[in-house]
């Protein structure tokens, strides 16, 4: 694999028309009666050393995107180009090599650490697997990374239950960074943490990004967290990206009716626009029997009959090539 020259147009990761469908099986013969289109034609690209945010409500497919990128799920179609290699077409050896450069930080700091392993072996395991490092060398590297994430080296012989939620999340981050990956997927890294701990972890992620020039795919449902952490943001709804723009642009000038509603639904401190709040009616519809037309149609305050004709494509807004929206009425 040639990783030195990148002709990915300056992007570290490029996702092209990714589709992940889960079959719905019914009846005695377990016949496939339909598909849940968890990810339905998602495309985006991430530049090195930047943070790309994926936002959306539960069930919108943001975690499925992350898992599809790592090929932890069977992908239906599409391309995921990482450093000139198509992950979805890679063979076993290539895949192992790629996974060395991509790591994951999970949401639940309690469920993602094995309670029977010491912190040293949890963090050191990737080194053993990928680089065959053991013994004193291993311990040295683990201590180094522990200090980088703000834990003391004597944590190495202790067990996960001895740590608080925030400290465990630091351990999870240390494990993700021990192989010096280029690309880190952060799946709701702070949503299980208390407010006072959340800001510590968000700052830590930023510091580590600066130090190791990491590229993040940042998955979250909290828009305030996303705005603080991300450079470019994509909003997902029912398996599709409905709006894609640089973070500042998106937050100052949201265009898709869903993004607007999502932003006005957050309870904010000292919000001058509270009177203009817009409420969404209804809930996310059943994803199995998706009707034709815009997926947001049933909840959209501006819905017109023309919205039902087909699913609007994600296209640039006139005069703002970086701001993409999937809505016919912009």
């Amino acid at each position: 694999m040639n990783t030195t020259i990148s002709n990915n147009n300056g992007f570290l990761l490029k996702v092209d028309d990714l589709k992940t469908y889960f079959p719905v099986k019914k009846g005695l013969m377990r016949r496939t009666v339909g598909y849940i289109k968890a990810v339905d034609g998602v495309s985006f690209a991430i530049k090195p050393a930047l943070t790309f945010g994926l936002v959306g409500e539960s069930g919108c497919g943001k975690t499925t995107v992350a898992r599809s990128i790592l090929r932890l799920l069977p992908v239906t179609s599409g391309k995921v180009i990482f450093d000139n290699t198509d992950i979805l077409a890679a063979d076993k050896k290539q895949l192992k090599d790629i996974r060395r450069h991509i790591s994951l930080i999970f949401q639940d700091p309690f469920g993602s650490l094995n309670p029977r392993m010491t912190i040293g072996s949890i963090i050191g395991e990737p080194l053993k697997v990928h680089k065959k490092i053991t013994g004193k060398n291993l311990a040295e590297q683990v201590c180094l990374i522990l200090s980088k994430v703000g834990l003391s080296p004597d944590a190495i012989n202790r067990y996960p239950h001895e740590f608080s939620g925030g400290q465990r999340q630091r351990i999870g981050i240390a494990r993700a960074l021990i192989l010096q990956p280029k690309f880190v997927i952060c799946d709701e890294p702070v949503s299980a943490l208390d407010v006072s701990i959340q800001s510590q972890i968000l700052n830590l992620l930023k510091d580590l990004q600066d130090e190791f020039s990491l590229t993040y795919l940042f998955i979250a449902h909290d828009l305030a967290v996303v705005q603080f952490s991300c450079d470019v943001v994509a909003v997902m709804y029912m398996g599709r990206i409905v709006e894609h723009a640089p973070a500042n642009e998106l937050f100052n000038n949201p265009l898709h009716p869903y993004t607007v509603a999502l932003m006005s639904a957050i309870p904010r401190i000292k919000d001058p626009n509270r009177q203009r709040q817009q409420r969404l009616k209804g809930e996310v519809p059943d994803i199995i029997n998706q009707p034709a037309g815009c997926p947001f149609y049933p909840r959209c305050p501006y819905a017109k009959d023309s919205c039902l004709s087909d699913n609007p494509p994600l296209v640039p807004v006139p005069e703002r090539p970086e701001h993409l929206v999937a809505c016919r009425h912009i």
Partner: protein
Amino acid sequence: MNNDTLLDAQGLCVDFFTEEGIAHAVQNVSFSVKKGQTFALVGESGCGKSVTALSIMQLVPDPPGKIVAGQINFDGRNLVELSEKCMRAVRGNRIAMIFQEPMTSLNPVYTVGEQIVEAIQLHQKKSETEAWNLAVEVLRQVQIPDPAQRVIEYPHQMSGGMRQRVMIAMAISCKPQLLIADEPTTALDVTIQAQILDLLGELQQQNKMSILLITHDLGIVEERASEVAVMYASKIAEKSDCKSLFDKPLHPYTQGLLKSLPRVGFSGKRLHTISGVVPDPLHFPTGCKFHPRCPIGCTDKRCQTIEPQLRKVEGGREVACWYAPGYEKHDDPKL
């Protein structure tokens, strides 16, 4: 107790007698909820806000927990001294509670109608038909579409937002005077959260109900509550009307919390942080419990040794910090 006060907790202390020692989960907590208003208890996990709610309902798990001191006056009676039989007439009837997890607080093997009817018939003399009609009516009140059909469905047939609406319907079916909402929207998506909070506001107006809102989300507090108490390590750090708290927080903990929140529209490079972690209730620090994390208290001898009690300062606000403006006016001319 004032005439417009519905619930008044005074000096409430709850201890948990565990194998590792006594954990003081709630220490000397006093607050009152006014009629028709929303009082918020806000704090991080483990600060004692849920235990406070459970002690109002007399539902603190015993053993290991026990209310060791204090009283909770509700409508002229002290709930702490009430017999279990009398308490049952209050619980679910005069005071109702909704919980964080709409998935686990409903019984999966009964239809939602059966569960609401059970709550109604427990407290009101109603025939089967009347109770079922009332169940449909409360489902309509919580804006569930097609309530006559929904009433015979099971919880698993509903989404999280719908289940929380069913919980609310059950809670308001006996027209309680006080609704305790313990993190009512934490498990829900933001757009659904906004719907549920709007609904609670409307029901409060219609039924002239008081709400004790328990949450960790300061945004919700500012939007929905009229008064607020910030809890830290089993005690109230600061108590005030909502507007003044957000205009000018007095306790360093509240100040730190507000500063450390990422906000939409904020465009700084780094977030403010409160160093350290919430202390373990079995090993609280000496003096002010916040001092190891406090920018002032970490070096101050008095903060490290003497614990400040909640005291009135100007504007009817109360705070427990040696350095809060006005805290020591009477005995220290310097401040």
